[in-house]
């Protein structure tokens, strides 16, 4: 049971990350390949503040998320107006730098030996892991709701315009550079929050957690579910992490000698799924969704007529 709650919590962290990537890449067109870096800053930042400096967990999470956001701001100022490839390479490189720093700065992070322990809040409660899972769910659902609000907002429309044709948006007076930067900083800061929330889940932090495989898993999930759909992240993560890491690994009776092959088989399936999606349905399982049109759109008789016909 505890393991299931742990897996589900981890899954919701993935959903949250994919949701934020949906805003960054799906809406704004910023290919962030350093998801694990910003998440990792939140994770390790929280760990270091909590373990080494005895900062309360909540404050540690907030503090480390601010650091994530600040690092994102620095990176954004340097590369966000460059081409997509440049952003991709720079974010990937940043996540590698962060992972390496966590190994080399062993006075703070414990290096490869690890950093611990970080417990759940309210240690006196028996079901504290369940409570924490509930909180995590609420936070991720809030992210999904928030990104639906963003999609339907003036800012969201501006982000889509910038993604489609940045030069044209600028010629209409939109400050595209600062809008992109603000979006990137806020979403990377929120990735940091998810990292901080992951610290009590993992309890013991090792640099291995910062491997780029997390970035790829989130990307695969988002592309699979639909990068341009608000629910693409959640569907994608359920179809990858949920299906393989939770259902297959926990509930499907696989003989012990074959079980060792499961992780490889999982990667194989991810690969096949991804190729199929890119070949047959590049917009992802759910496709793209559009902002809600207002109901009383038809204020004029002419528009009314067209609505009825449709």
């Amino acid at each position, binding site marked *: 049971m505890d393991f299931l709650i742990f897996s589900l919590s981890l899954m919701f962290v993935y959903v949250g990350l994919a949701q934020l990537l949906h805003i960054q890449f799906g809406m704004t067109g910023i290919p962030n390949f350093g998801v694990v870096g910003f998440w990792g800053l939140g994770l390790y930042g929280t760990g270091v503040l909590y373990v080494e400096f005895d900062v309360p967990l909540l404050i540690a999470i907030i503090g480390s998320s601010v650091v994530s956001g600040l690092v994102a701001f620095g990176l954004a100022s340097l590369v966000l107006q460059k081409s997509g490839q440049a952003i991709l390479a720079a974010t990937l490189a940043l996540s590698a730098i962060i992972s390496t720093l966590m190994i080399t700065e062993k006075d703070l992070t414990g290096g490869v030996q690890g950093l611990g322990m970080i417990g759940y809040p309210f240690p006196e409660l028996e079901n504290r892991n369940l409570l924490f899972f509930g909180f995590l769910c609420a936070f991720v659902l809030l992210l999904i709701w928030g990104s639906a609000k963003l999609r339907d907002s003036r800012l969201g429309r501006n982000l889509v315009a910038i*993604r489609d044709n940045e030069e044209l948006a600028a010629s209409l007076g939109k400050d595209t550079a600062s809008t992109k930067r603000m979006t990137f900083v806020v979403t990377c800061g929120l990735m940091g929050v998810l990292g901080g929330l992951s610290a009590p889940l993992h309890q013991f932090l090792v640099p291995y957690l910062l491997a780029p495989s997390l970035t790829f898993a989130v990307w695969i999930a988002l592309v699979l579910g639909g990068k341009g759909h608000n629910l693409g992240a959640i569907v994608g993560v359920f179809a990858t992490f949920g299906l393989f890491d939770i259902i297959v690994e926990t509930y499907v009776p696989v003989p012990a000698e074959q079980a060792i092959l499961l992780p490889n088989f999982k990667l194989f399936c991810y690969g096949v799924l991804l190729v199929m999606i890119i070949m047959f349905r590049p917009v992802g399982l759910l496709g793209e969704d559009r902002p809600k049109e207002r109901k009383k759109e038809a204020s004029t008789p002419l528009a009314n007529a067209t609505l009825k016909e449709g």
Partner: protein
Amino acid sequence: MKLQAQNLTKAYHAHEVVNIEKVTFGAKGLEGLIGPNGAGKSTLMGLLTRRIAPTSGDITLDTGDGVNKLNPLKSHEVARIGLIKTNQRIQGFDSLTIRDSLRLAVTPPKKEGFMSIFAGERDSEEVEERVSRLIEAFPFTDRNGYARSGGEKKLVDILRCLIAEPKLLLMDEPTAGLPEDITRSDMDMVRKKVASGKMRVVVVAHDLPLIWEYCDYVHFLSEGSILFEGEPEEVKSNRVVAEKYMGV
């Protein structure tokens, strides 16, 4: 309203595309800019709106509230002062409906901040009405959908600029590819806007009859320099223009 360029040059490597001693746009209402292919018309438009960086020269925009030097500004800052340009090549936002595209243009950037996520209604009644009024004046195949043909996309580009209500609008080949009737209603709308005193317009076009009919003043550009300026009648009968452009 005065958009002025002085000693403006643009060279790609050693090849000089634009070399203008002095030119003023926006002083006369609806102005035309004509010239043979390769004269540098589009480059000049790009220079004026800061999409292209000049090799040398100063550009200033006098909006009546003060004189702005455009050289240090970015293109979105130029647009905010009130100088916007429509595009010769078809440009658009593929994921936005015609309505959304116009709503985007009419919404001032300061209303698109982070807090707009929590606003109850996305666009005010006033915005909706302005958008509807403009859309219904033209025969789009799907008024609530996307611009389909190249002509519709071009038209949306023009409407987007008109609804943004710039003080000075530069139109680069606005009617190329549009059917005759839409060209007319389009240009009539532009002339009405100019007559109402809301904006000044400069039209770049190869369609000379259109220029003669609609423009109050015409600039003739050839080989990167302004060779002649004047009323349509003067330009029409000018020998240099005839030789260089109309081939008579």
